[in-house]
Protein backbone atom coordinates (compact mmCIF):
# COMPACT_ATOMS: atom_id res chain seq x y z
CA UNK A 1 0.00 0.00 0.00
CA UNK A 2 1.05 3.61 -0.51
CA UNK A 3 1.94 5.96 2.32
CA UNK A 4 2.42 9.69 2.09
CA UNK A 5 5.40 10.50 4.25
CA UNK A 6 6.81 13.88 5.20
CA UNK A 7 10.41 14.02 6.32
CA UNK A 8 13.58 16.01 5.84
CA UNK A 9 16.68 14.80 4.07
CA UNK A 10 19.75 16.97 4.59
CA UNK A 11 17.38 19.65 5.95
CA UNK A 12 15.31 19.70 2.74
CA UNK A 13 11.65 18.92 3.39
CA UNK A 14 10.03 16.21 1.25
CA UNK A 15 6.51 14.86 1.04
CA UNK A 16 6.48 11.74 -1.10
CA UNK A 17 4.50 8.56 -1.62
CA UNK A 18 6.24 5.31 -0.71
CA UNK A 19 5.22 1.66 -0.79
CA UNK A 20 4.94 -0.17 2.54
CA UNK A 21 7.76 -2.60 1.78
CA UNK A 22 10.21 -0.04 0.40
CA UNK A 23 13.29 0.54 2.47
CA UNK A 24 14.57 4.00 3.27
CA UNK A 25 17.71 3.07 1.31
CA UNK A 26 15.81 2.44 -1.92
CA UNK A 27 13.69 5.56 -1.52
CA UNK A 28 16.72 7.76 -0.95
CA UNK A 29 18.46 6.40 -4.02
CA UNK A 30 15.65 5.73 -6.44
CA UNK A 31 13.01 8.33 -5.57
CA UNK A 32 15.19 11.18 -4.33
CA UNK A 33 18.21 10.41 -6.53
CA UNK A 34 20.61 10.54 -3.57
CA UNK A 35 22.92 7.75 -4.71
CA UNK A 36 25.76 8.62 -2.33
CA UNK A 37 24.24 6.10 0.09
CA UNK A 38 25.31 2.70 -1.21
CA UNK A 39 23.53 -0.62 -1.51
CA UNK A 40 25.83 -3.30 -0.14
CA UNK A 41 24.65 -6.40 1.67
CA UNK A 42 21.10 -5.17 2.40
CA UNK A 43 21.42 -7.24 5.53
CA UNK A 44 22.67 -4.77 8.11
CA UNK A 45 26.16 -6.22 8.01
CA UNK A 46 28.27 -3.93 5.80
CA UNK A 47 27.23 -0.40 6.73
CA UNK A 48 27.53 0.99 3.17
CA UNK A 49 23.95 2.29 3.52
CA UNK A 50 24.55 4.09 6.83
CA UNK A 51 22.62 7.36 7.19
CA UNK A 52 21.82 9.47 10.22
CA UNK A 53 18.24 9.05 11.46
CA UNK A 54 17.42 11.88 13.86
CA UNK A 55 21.18 12.28 14.21
CA UNK A 56 21.97 8.62 14.95
CA UNK A 57 23.59 6.20 12.49
CA UNK A 58 21.32 3.46 11.18
CA UNK A 59 21.43 0.97 8.32
CA UNK A 60 18.98 2.50 5.85
CA UNK A 61 18.50 -0.99 4.38
CA UNK A 62 16.91 -2.02 7.70
CA UNK A 63 14.47 0.88 7.94
CA UNK A 64 11.17 1.02 6.08
CA UNK A 65 10.67 4.33 4.34
CA UNK A 66 7.27 4.53 6.05
CA UNK A 67 9.07 4.52 9.40
CA UNK A 68 10.90 7.70 8.41
CA UNK A 69 7.67 9.72 8.39
CA UNK A 70 8.20 12.80 10.56
CA UNK A 71 11.92 12.20 11.02
CA UNK A 72 15.17 13.86 9.97
CA UNK A 73 17.56 12.00 7.71
CA UNK A 74 21.10 12.99 6.83
CA UNK A 75 23.05 11.38 4.00
CA UNK A 76 26.59 11.89 2.77
CA UNK A 77 25.26 14.49 0.33
CA UNK A 78 24.44 16.66 3.33
CA UNK A 79 27.96 16.72 4.73
CA UNK A 80 29.50 19.41 2.55
CA UNK A 81 28.26 22.93 3.10
CA UNK A 82 28.15 25.38 0.20
CA UNK A 83 30.56 23.26 -1.83
CA UNK A 84 33.08 23.03 1.02
CA UNK A 85 33.86 19.50 2.06
CA UNK A 86 33.31 18.53 5.69
CA UNK A 87 36.58 18.25 7.68
CA UNK A 88 36.11 14.46 7.78
CA UNK A 89 35.80 14.33 4.00
CA UNK A 90 38.96 16.43 3.62
CA UNK A 91 40.82 14.22 6.09
CA UNK A 92 39.72 11.04 4.27
CA UNK A 93 41.23 12.48 1.07
CA UNK A 94 44.42 13.71 2.75
CA UNK A 95 45.04 10.39 4.51
CA UNK A 96 44.22 8.26 1.46
CA UNK A 97 41.42 6.68 3.48
CA UNK A 98 39.49 6.08 0.26
CA UNK A 99 40.40 3.34 -2.16
CA UNK A 100 37.42 1.95 -4.07
CA UNK A 101 35.19 4.37 -2.16
CA UNK A 102 32.18 2.13 -1.75
CA UNK A 103 32.28 2.10 2.04
CA UNK A 104 33.23 5.78 2.32
CA UNK A 105 29.77 7.38 2.58
CA UNK A 106 28.80 5.01 5.38
CA UNK A 107 32.17 5.43 7.10
CA UNK A 108 31.73 9.21 6.99
CA UNK A 109 28.26 9.05 8.52
CA UNK A 110 29.43 6.77 11.35
CA UNK A 111 32.50 8.93 11.93
CA UNK A 112 30.44 12.12 12.00
CA UNK A 113 28.10 10.68 14.60
CA UNK A 114 31.02 9.41 16.67
CA UNK A 115 32.70 12.82 16.82
CA UNK A 116 29.42 14.50 17.81
CA UNK A 117 29.00 12.08 20.75
CA UNK A 118 32.69 11.77 21.58
CA UNK A 119 34.88 14.57 20.16
CA UNK A 120 38.13 12.95 21.38
CA UNK A 121 37.77 9.21 20.77
CA UNK A 122 40.68 6.85 21.28
CA UNK A 123 41.53 4.23 18.68
CA UNK A 124 39.42 1.53 20.34
CA UNK A 125 36.41 3.83 20.46
CA UNK A 126 36.85 4.66 16.78
CA UNK A 127 37.12 0.96 15.91
CA UNK A 128 33.99 0.20 17.91
CA UNK A 129 32.06 3.02 16.25
CA UNK A 130 33.08 1.70 12.82
CA UNK A 131 32.44 -1.98 13.65
CA UNK A 132 29.29 -1.90 11.54
CA UNK A 133 31.10 -0.47 8.50
CA UNK A 134 33.12 -2.95 6.48
CA UNK A 135 35.98 -1.86 4.23
CA UNK A 136 37.63 -4.48 2.03
CA UNK A 137 40.38 -2.18 0.65
CA UNK A 138 42.10 -0.04 3.21
CA UNK A 139 42.62 -2.30 6.20
CA UNK A 140 40.99 0.55 8.20
CA UNK A 141 44.29 2.07 9.38
CA UNK A 142 44.07 5.17 7.20
CA UNK A 143 40.39 5.63 7.97
CA UNK A 144 41.17 5.61 11.68
CA UNK A 145 44.07 8.04 11.15
CA UNK A 146 41.79 10.40 9.23
CA UNK A 147 39.23 10.41 12.04
CA UNK A 148 41.95 10.90 14.68
CA UNK A 149 43.30 13.83 12.66
CA UNK A 150 39.91 15.56 12.66
CA UNK A 151 39.43 14.84 16.37
CA UNK A 152 42.82 16.36 17.19
CA UNK A 153 43.01 19.20 14.69
CA UNK A 154 39.38 19.92 13.77
Amino acid at each position, binding site marked *: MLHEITFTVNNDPYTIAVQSQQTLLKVLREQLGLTGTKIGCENGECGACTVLFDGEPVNSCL*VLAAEADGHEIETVEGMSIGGDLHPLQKAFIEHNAVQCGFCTPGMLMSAKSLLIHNPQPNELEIREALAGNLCRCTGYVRIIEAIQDVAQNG
Partner: protein
Amino acid sequence: MRKFDYYQPKDFAEAFELLLLPDKVVMPLAGATDIIPLARDGHIQPDVVVDIKSLPGMREIKATEKGLLVGAAVRMNEIASSPLVREHATVLAEGAATVGHVQVRNRATLGGNMCTASPAGDTFPALLVLEAEVLIRGVEGERSVPVLEFFKGPRRTALHKGELVVGVLLPKLDGAQGHYTKLSRRKVADLTLVGVAALAIPSEAGYVWRLALGAVAPTPVRVPAAEQILSQGYAAAAIEQAAVAAHAACSPIDDIRSSAEYRREMVVNITKRAIGKVIEKLP
Protein backbone atom coordinates in the same frame (compact mmCIF):
# COMPACT_ATOMS: atom_id res chain seq x y z
CA MET B 1 10.93 -7.25 -1.62
CA ARG B 2 7.57 -9.01 -1.49
CA LYS B 3 4.66 -6.62 -1.06
CA PHE B 4 3.13 -6.17 2.35
CA ASP B 5 1.03 -3.53 4.04
CA TYR B 6 2.51 -1.47 6.86
CA TYR B 7 0.41 -0.01 9.64
CA GLN B 8 1.43 2.08 12.61
CA PRO B 9 -1.48 1.90 15.07
CA LYS B 10 -1.60 4.48 17.84
CA ASP B 11 -3.69 2.44 20.28
CA PHE B 12 -3.93 -1.20 21.30
CA ALA B 13 -7.50 -1.69 20.04
CA GLU B 14 -6.40 -0.85 16.52
CA ALA B 15 -3.25 -2.95 16.90
CA PHE B 16 -5.16 -6.07 17.97
CA GLU B 17 -7.70 -5.61 15.20
CA LEU B 18 -4.81 -5.71 12.74
CA LEU B 19 -2.95 -8.53 14.47
CA LEU B 20 -6.06 -10.71 14.34
CA LEU B 21 -6.98 -10.01 10.72
CA PRO B 22 -8.39 -13.27 9.39
CA ASP B 23 -6.67 -15.05 6.49
CA LYS B 24 -3.63 -12.79 6.63
CA VAL B 25 -0.09 -13.41 7.78
CA VAL B 26 0.34 -10.55 10.23
CA MET B 27 3.59 -9.74 12.00
CA PRO B 28 4.37 -7.17 14.64
CA LEU B 29 7.34 -4.98 13.73
CA ALA B 30 9.53 -3.15 16.24
CA GLY B 31 13.11 -2.37 15.18
CA ALA B 32 12.66 -4.18 11.84
CA THR B 33 16.30 -5.33 11.85
CA ASP B 34 15.25 -9.00 11.65
CA ILE B 35 12.01 -8.69 9.73
CA ILE B 36 13.32 -6.77 6.71
CA PRO B 37 16.11 -9.23 5.75
CA LEU B 38 13.89 -12.25 6.52
CA ALA B 39 11.08 -10.87 4.36
CA ARG B 40 13.42 -9.90 1.55
CA ASP B 41 14.92 -13.38 1.43
CA GLY B 42 11.48 -15.00 1.57
CA HIS B 43 11.99 -16.71 4.94
CA ILE B 44 8.85 -14.98 6.16
CA GLN B 45 5.93 -13.89 4.00
CA PRO B 46 3.95 -11.26 5.86
CA ASP B 47 0.85 -9.76 4.27
CA VAL B 48 0.66 -7.13 6.97
CA VAL B 49 3.24 -5.72 9.37
CA VAL B 50 2.09 -3.82 12.43
CA ASP B 51 4.58 -1.27 13.74
CA ILE B 52 4.15 -1.36 17.51
CA LYS B 53 6.55 1.50 18.32
CA SER B 54 3.81 4.13 18.65
CA LEU B 55 1.66 2.17 21.09
CA PRO B 56 1.38 3.70 24.57
CA GLY B 57 4.23 2.83 26.91
CA MET B 58 6.26 0.89 24.37
CA ARG B 59 9.17 3.36 24.35
CA GLU B 60 9.25 4.02 28.11
CA ILE B 61 11.78 3.18 30.80
CA LYS B 62 10.14 3.78 34.17
CA ALA B 63 11.03 3.08 37.80
CA THR B 64 8.00 1.73 39.67
CA GLU B 65 7.44 0.34 43.16
CA LYS B 66 7.75 -3.20 41.84
CA GLY B 67 10.85 -2.55 39.83
CA LEU B 68 12.06 -1.14 36.57
CA LEU B 69 9.69 -1.25 33.60
CA VAL B 70 11.32 -1.35 30.19
CA GLY B 71 8.98 -1.00 27.21
CA ALA B 72 9.24 -3.53 24.41
CA ALA B 73 10.19 -0.96 21.78
CA VAL B 74 13.04 0.61 23.74
CA ARG B 75 16.12 0.40 21.55
CA MET B 76 19.34 -1.36 22.50
CA ASN B 77 21.38 1.83 22.59
CA GLU B 78 18.73 3.49 24.75
CA ILE B 79 18.93 0.60 27.21
CA ALA B 80 22.73 0.60 27.15
CA SER B 81 22.93 4.32 27.94
CA SER B 82 19.89 4.70 30.21
CA PRO B 83 20.92 5.95 33.68
CA LEU B 84 17.91 4.09 35.15
CA VAL B 85 18.90 0.78 33.58
CA ARG B 86 22.56 1.29 34.46
CA GLU B 87 21.58 1.92 38.06
CA HIS B 88 19.01 -0.86 38.53
CA ALA B 89 20.14 -3.49 36.03
CA THR B 90 23.70 -2.89 34.84
CA VAL B 91 23.87 -6.43 33.53
CA LEU B 92 21.06 -5.70 31.05
CA ALA B 93 22.74 -2.48 29.92
CA GLU B 94 25.90 -4.49 29.31
CA GLY B 95 24.01 -7.11 27.35
CA ALA B 96 22.26 -4.51 25.20
CA ALA B 97 25.58 -2.76 24.52
CA THR B 98 26.97 -5.90 22.90
CA VAL B 99 24.12 -6.50 20.43
CA GLY B 100 25.24 -6.17 16.80
CA HIS B 101 26.87 -2.82 16.10
CA VAL B 102 25.99 0.85 16.56
CA GLN B 103 23.64 1.05 13.56
CA VAL B 104 21.72 -2.07 14.59
CA ARG B 105 21.55 -1.00 18.24
CA ASN B 106 20.00 2.29 17.14
CA ARG B 107 17.05 0.37 15.66
CA ALA B 108 16.83 -3.04 17.36
CA THR B 109 14.52 -3.21 20.38
CA LEU B 110 14.42 -5.32 23.52
CA GLY B 111 10.97 -6.73 22.75
CA GLY B 112 11.89 -7.45 19.15
CA ASN B 113 15.04 -9.24 20.26
CA MET B 114 12.98 -11.34 22.68
CA CYS B 115 10.32 -12.24 20.13
CA THR B 116 12.97 -13.21 17.56
CA ALA B 117 14.16 -15.57 20.33
CA SER B 118 17.49 -16.45 18.78
CA PRO B 119 19.34 -18.71 21.22
CA ALA B 120 22.22 -16.21 20.97
CA GLY B 121 20.23 -13.12 22.00
CA ASP B 122 22.60 -10.98 24.07
CA THR B 123 19.96 -9.51 26.37
CA PHE B 124 18.55 -12.87 27.47
CA PRO B 125 21.12 -14.10 30.01
CA ALA B 126 20.75 -10.72 31.75
CA LEU B 127 16.95 -11.01 31.76
CA LEU B 128 17.29 -14.50 33.23
CA VAL B 129 19.52 -13.52 36.14
CA LEU B 130 17.33 -10.48 36.81
CA GLU B 131 14.29 -12.83 36.82
CA ALA B 132 12.42 -10.44 34.56
CA GLU B 133 8.67 -10.74 34.19
CA VAL B 134 7.61 -10.57 30.56
CA LEU B 135 4.54 -8.37 30.22
CA ILE B 136 2.23 -9.62 27.50
CA ARG B 137 -0.92 -8.00 26.23
CA GLY B 138 -3.60 -9.57 24.09
CA VAL B 139 -7.08 -8.60 23.03
CA GLU B 140 -8.41 -10.23 26.20
CA GLY B 141 -6.11 -8.41 28.57
CA GLU B 142 -2.68 -8.57 30.11
CA ARG B 143 -0.68 -11.46 31.53
CA SER B 144 2.89 -11.90 32.54
CA VAL B 145 5.24 -14.87 32.40
CA PRO B 146 8.62 -15.38 34.06
CA VAL B 147 11.29 -14.86 31.42
CA LEU B 148 12.55 -18.41 31.92
CA GLU B 149 9.18 -19.68 30.65
CA PHE B 150 9.02 -17.19 27.79
CA PHE B 151 11.72 -18.78 25.64
CA LYS B 152 10.49 -22.15 24.33
CA GLY B 153 13.15 -22.94 21.75
CA PRO B 154 14.98 -21.37 18.82
CA ARG B 155 12.59 -18.71 17.48
CA ARG B 156 9.76 -20.02 19.66
CA THR B 157 8.22 -18.14 22.57
CA ALA B 158 5.24 -18.37 24.93
CA LEU B 159 3.35 -15.75 22.90
CA HIS B 160 -0.04 -16.74 21.52
CA LYS B 161 -1.37 -15.52 18.20
CA GLY B 162 -2.35 -11.89 18.38
CA GLU B 163 -0.43 -11.21 21.58
CA LEU B 164 2.29 -8.60 21.98
CA VAL B 165 5.16 -8.32 24.40
CA VAL B 166 4.67 -4.83 25.83
CA GLY B 167 7.69 -4.79 28.09
CA VAL B 168 9.59 -6.40 30.91
CA LEU B 169 9.48 -5.77 34.64
CA LEU B 170 12.86 -6.06 36.33
CA PRO B 171 12.21 -6.67 40.05
CA LYS B 172 14.12 -4.49 42.49
CA LEU B 173 17.34 -6.11 43.68
CA ASP B 174 18.92 -3.69 46.11
CA GLY B 175 22.68 -3.74 46.04
CA ALA B 176 22.92 -6.46 43.40
CA GLN B 177 25.96 -6.47 41.13
CA GLY B 178 25.94 -8.20 37.78
CA HIS B 179 27.99 -8.60 34.66
CA TYR B 180 27.44 -9.87 31.13
CA THR B 181 30.36 -11.02 29.05
CA LYS B 182 30.49 -12.81 25.76
CA LEU B 183 32.77 -14.51 23.32
CA SER B 184 32.50 -14.03 19.58
CA ARG B 185 34.88 -14.45 16.66
CA ARG B 186 35.09 -10.69 16.25
CA LYS B 187 35.13 -8.42 19.30
CA VAL B 188 32.05 -6.55 18.13
CA ALA B 189 29.39 -6.96 15.45
CA ASP B 190 29.33 -10.74 15.47
CA LEU B 191 26.93 -13.37 16.77
CA THR B 192 27.74 -14.66 20.21
CA LEU B 193 29.40 -18.05 20.66
CA VAL B 194 29.03 -18.03 24.43
CA GLY B 195 27.29 -15.39 26.56
CA VAL B 196 27.31 -15.45 30.36
CA ALA B 197 25.48 -13.26 32.85
CA ALA B 198 26.33 -13.46 36.54
CA LEU B 199 24.60 -11.61 39.35
CA ALA B 200 25.28 -11.42 43.09
CA ILE B 201 22.48 -10.24 45.38
CA PRO B 202 23.32 -9.28 48.97
CA SER B 203 21.76 -11.56 51.58
CA GLU B 204 22.15 -12.09 55.31
CA ALA B 205 24.80 -14.74 54.80
CA GLY B 206 26.69 -13.02 52.02
CA TYR B 207 25.45 -13.15 48.46
CA VAL B 208 22.89 -15.14 46.55
CA TRP B 209 24.27 -15.79 43.08
CA ARG B 210 22.50 -16.25 39.79
CA LEU B 211 24.14 -17.44 36.59
CA ALA B 212 22.75 -17.74 33.07
CA LEU B 213 24.20 -18.88 29.76
CA GLY B 214 23.28 -17.76 26.25
CA ALA B 215 24.04 -19.19 22.80
CA VAL B 216 24.93 -22.66 24.13
CA ALA B 217 21.50 -24.31 24.32
CA PRO B 218 18.20 -24.07 22.39
CA THR B 219 17.16 -21.36 24.84
CA PRO B 220 19.08 -19.27 27.35
CA VAL B 221 19.51 -21.33 30.54
CA ARG B 222 20.07 -20.77 34.24
CA VAL B 223 22.66 -22.92 36.00
CA PRO B 224 21.21 -23.69 39.48
CA ALA B 225 24.11 -26.01 40.40
CA ALA B 226 26.63 -23.21 39.85
CA GLU B 227 24.41 -20.74 41.70
CA GLN B 228 24.28 -22.98 44.78
CA ILE B 229 28.04 -23.39 44.81
CA LEU B 230 28.72 -19.64 44.53
CA SER B 231 26.07 -18.72 47.08
CA GLN B 232 28.06 -20.72 49.67
CA GLY B 233 31.18 -18.71 48.89
CA TYR B 234 33.08 -17.53 45.86
CA ALA B 235 36.68 -18.47 46.56
CA ALA B 236 38.79 -19.66 43.63
CA ALA B 237 37.86 -23.34 44.09
CA ALA B 238 34.15 -22.47 44.11
CA ILE B 239 34.52 -20.48 40.90
CA GLU B 240 36.20 -23.50 39.28
CA GLN B 241 33.36 -25.77 40.42
CA ALA B 242 30.73 -23.29 39.22
CA ALA B 243 32.39 -23.16 35.80
CA VAL B 244 32.38 -26.96 35.65
CA ALA B 245 28.68 -26.91 36.54
CA ALA B 246 28.07 -24.44 33.70
CA HIS B 247 29.96 -26.74 31.34
CA ALA B 248 27.64 -29.59 32.39
CA ALA B 249 24.52 -27.44 31.94
CA CYS B 250 25.11 -26.37 28.34
CA SER B 251 24.18 -28.22 25.15
CA PRO B 252 25.67 -26.23 22.26
CA ILE B 253 25.55 -27.08 18.56
CA ASP B 254 28.14 -27.17 15.80
CA ASP B 255 27.68 -24.46 13.23
CA ILE B 256 29.62 -22.29 10.82
CA ARG B 257 30.87 -20.08 13.66
CA SER B 258 32.27 -22.73 15.94
CA SER B 259 32.17 -26.36 16.97
CA ALA B 260 30.03 -27.44 19.89
CA GLU B 261 33.16 -28.70 21.59
CA TYR B 262 34.82 -25.29 21.43
CA ARG B 263 31.69 -23.60 22.73
CA ARG B 264 31.49 -26.06 25.62
CA GLU B 265 35.12 -25.48 26.57
CA MET B 266 34.67 -21.74 26.33
CA VAL B 267 31.63 -21.84 28.62
CA VAL B 268 34.13 -22.66 31.38
CA ASN B 269 36.37 -19.69 30.61
CA ILE B 270 33.63 -17.14 29.99
CA THR B 271 31.75 -18.22 33.12
CA LYS B 272 34.89 -17.67 35.22
CA ARG B 273 35.41 -14.30 33.56
CA ALA B 274 31.83 -13.18 34.26
CA ILE B 275 32.00 -14.27 37.91
CA GLY B 276 35.35 -12.55 38.32
CA LYS B 277 33.96 -9.30 36.96
CA VAL B 278 31.06 -9.43 39.42
CA ILE B 279 33.46 -10.05 42.31
CA GLU B 280 35.45 -6.97 41.21
CA LYS B 281 32.26 -4.92 41.50
CA LEU B 282 31.33 -6.18 44.99
CA PRO B 283 32.02 -3.76 47.83
